[in-house]
């Protein structure tokens, strides 16, 4: 399939609407990254809480 753009600069400029297009795509990228980091942190916290329980029980 033929590509629509003549050059990379053309692509980034988005026909003059670059600011609006990249602000949109940038926000999505940021949101996904934040969500994935949040997921990893939550899993880590959940595992840490289980360890804590285990240690508490071992002490008693």
């Amino acid at each position, binding site marked *: 399939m033929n590509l*629509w753009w003549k050059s990379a600069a053309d692509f980034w400029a988005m026909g003059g609407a670059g600011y609006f297009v990249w602000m949109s795509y940038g926000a999505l990228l940021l949101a996904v990254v934040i969500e994935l980091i949040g997921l990893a942190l939550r899993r880590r916290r959940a595992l840490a809480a289980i360890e804590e329980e285990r240690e508490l029980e071992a002490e008693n």
Partner: protein
Amino acid sequence: MNWFYYASPATFYGLAGRLAPYFFLLAAVLTGWGLYLGMLVAPTDAQQGEVYRVIYIHVPAAWMSMFLYFIMACYGALTLIFNTRLSGMMARAIAPTGAMFTFIALWTGAFWGKPTWGAYWVWDARLTSELVLLFLYFGFIALANAFEDPRRGDRAAALLAVIGVVNLPIIYFSVKWWNTLHQGASVSFKGTSMHVTMFTAMLVMSAAAWMYAIAVTLVRVRSIILERERRAQWVREAVKA
């Protein structure tokens, strides 16, 4: 297949863990394909010029914001009717991703509206009802966490989710029922008013959004199950020290 087998958090934990990587992989592949088609191959739009390319994330995000709310409300109904444990956790796992897609739909809509309509925001029925959806997600999350007993939180939030379903047809039909600045639907059961490459790219991006939402929900529900059942014996065995 025994559905009740997988309705138990202990077995679902393992199933979700096995499935999630495949959905992440599918999401990545579909996103790559969709962006290639939409951003590199698809032609420009006669009316709007290149800025129309926001459609490849705006429309999938807006669809997901409504689909995910509907699924969340279905799990809410299961919680209220059968008092099942997993349904409450699934609804909680969906909510943040639903809120994320709603926010993206509103944000990308603003950055699309400015260069085309001439305004970032207007209080028309479509935009207002989508904003209400975002507040419904926030309300669900706040209510679910407002109780010491998580299962009471499940039930209270489920009630809000089920009541909030009335907002979905309002969002969808707002452009038909009332005068809005937002244009009508480009895609309906009767067909589409879009060029074929543009349409294909949008569908592929929508499929990618589905896969991403499923993957993230599965990973999140695993954390929720661990948080809830951290004293259970099976958790001790599943999570080795």
